[in-house]
């Protein structure tokens, strides 16, 4: 390897690592701050490695605040939104691709159109709607709200994933004696799995991080998710409890990281598997 090539590589690595550092630093700082004693928080110069590791902030969060309720709400919210969205979007995408009925293309365009509508526009009407049907301040209202704006996108994403599945596979299953539903379950679903999982992750992240709708539609501690919940515990008084906030942030990130670690391998699996030769 020539000197020029070598130095180019060193430079490239340097660049890559500084970008990684830039992105990772706030996360590391969040983690470090959450396990520092309160006294060390505002030391100048700041300590990168705490002199003493403490979990008191985590205990306080669990003992003294409704954090666990919020966490539970968020988990229920993310999982049920994802379940609803995936079931409807998978069946919907299949229908838009494989069934023929009048207005099918129009319907697909209409779905895309609703996605283009800014979701902020829908908050107030949805709020009144929820009050009217008596679902205000409930988790269900949030599931419905999140479904309205993640479904169109999920439907389109899945439609393009599933369009790549050859028609002949389903035909073959039908000829082999499967009903349409069986063909869907036995043949289409396994092929669509990577697409379904990425769509599910996308929906889950969206539901987990959503703030605006949660703020407007839910005003009781029993149904608040983490995003608005954490804000309400920590910024009510005059000072911001940084240690608590960081501990909460760490705990909020954990479920998503776990989900990613588990599902990541499915994301790539199955792509390019030879359904038909060529």
């Amino acid at each position, binding site marked *: 390897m020539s000197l020029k090539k070598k130095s180019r590589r060193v430079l490239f690595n340097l660049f890559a690592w500084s970008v990684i550092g830039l992105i990772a630093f706030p996360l590391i700082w969040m983690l470090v701050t959450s396990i520092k004693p309160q006294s060390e928080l505002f030391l100048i110069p700041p300590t990168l490695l705490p002199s003493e590791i403490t979990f008191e902030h985590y205990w306080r969060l669990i003992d003294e605040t409704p954090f666990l309720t919020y966490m539970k709400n968020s988990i229920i919210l993310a999982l049920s939104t994802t379940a609803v969205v995936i079931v409807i979007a998978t069946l919907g995408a299949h229908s838009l691709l494989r069934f023929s009925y009048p207005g099918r293309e129009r319907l697909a365009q209409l779905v895309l159109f609703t996605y283009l509508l800014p979701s902020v526009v829908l908050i107030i009407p949805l709020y009144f709607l929820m009050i009217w049907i008596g679902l205000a301040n409930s988790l269900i209202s949030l599931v419905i709200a999140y479904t309205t704006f993640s479904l169109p996108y999920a439907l389109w994403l899945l439609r393009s994933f599933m369009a790549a599945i050859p028609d002949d596979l389903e035909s073959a299953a*039908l000829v082999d004696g499967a009903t349409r539903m069986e063909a869907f379950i036995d043949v289409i679903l396994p092929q669509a799995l990577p697409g379904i999982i990425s769509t599910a992750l996308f929906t889950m992240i969206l539901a987990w991080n959503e703030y605006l709708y949660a703020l407007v539609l839910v005003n009781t501690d029993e149904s608040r998710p983490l995003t608005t919940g954490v804000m309400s515990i920590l910024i009510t008084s005059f000072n911001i409890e940084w240690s608590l906030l960081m501990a909460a942030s760490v705990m909020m990130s954990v479920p998503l990281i776990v989900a990613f670690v588990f599902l990541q391998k499915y994301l790539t699996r199955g792509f390019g598997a030879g*359904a038909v030769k060529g």
Partner: protein
Amino acid sequence: MSEVHINHVYKRFGDVTAVDDLSLLFKAGEFVSVLGPSGCGKTTLLRMLAGLETPSAGEISIGDKVVNDLPPGSRDIAMVFQTYALYPHMTVRGNIEYPLKKRRTPKAERAVKVKDAAELLQLEELLDRKPRQLSGGQQQRVALGRALVRDPAVFLLDEPLSNLDAKLRAHMRAELIQLHERIGKTMVYVTHDQLEAMTMSHRIAVLRFGVLQQFASPDEVYRKPANEFVAGFIGTPSMNFIAGEIDNSDGKLTFCGGGVALSVQAGLLPDGLIADGDKFLVKMGFRPEDIFIGDQGDDALVSVVEPTGHEVIVLIDLNGNEVVARVNPDVRLKAGDKVKLRFRPDKLHFFGTKEGIRLNV
């Protein structure tokens, strides 16, 4: 083993009529090819037989049952797709077993049947592999196995060999013929390769733009093509055509065209086709093997010589008409040679100019 009856069947997709008033009867146990150029409606016909597509009009029967309203799974047919359509996430065993599972065959019986099919198609070693770990020929055999395993009355095969290389194709052709002999089931074989149709089938249905052109044995389709399209489509190199006219003077028929004058053998054309003293516009067709190059006949010029080994294909300029001839490689010819052409009088085909209908007796 069942016969298949297609009765005035139409299929329209919007403005396109993919299958146009088709009526065919396939006998039980027969190996029938459906032959035609790309887009002529072969796959559409097969998909209608399978129940994957509903006819716009007409009736389809398998055995003595009208199947128009039966779903694919209840028609007692099996289909091999152009793309094979093996289930990628299942093993070879899973693929072959799938139709049995859907028919609630008991597990023990399934295992036996899968084993038998695998044995017949020499797939025993591959049973635990996934389709993507197989070669094209192996995938093709798995697709056949999946069709075989449940012992259907009718096999539908959609260009199953079109994705294989030439050598493997010849091999699989022979295997398919043997397979048909062994199991004796009705097979409907779709192809655009006339060689496959000619070598494998009892009868060939030739389609064009969704319309049936001819339904006859390979021999008849070759020797007595029903019209100009069939004549030109079947045979490689394809039939030569020369436009001209036939006149009748005192009951003697003479073809004139392309600078050639030929007397037409008695009995070749129906009596009374052309009234005495009358003329009739025709196209004369003759196959490349039915002309001779020698020292008698009409003057012509050799334009291209293509040796293929066992024979030589010669392109000849006959008074401005391009004519293809097959000749023995021992005849040494080169481009630019002046030659003389003779036609085999009993092998001339005549077609009407309007619809290209065969005029011969």
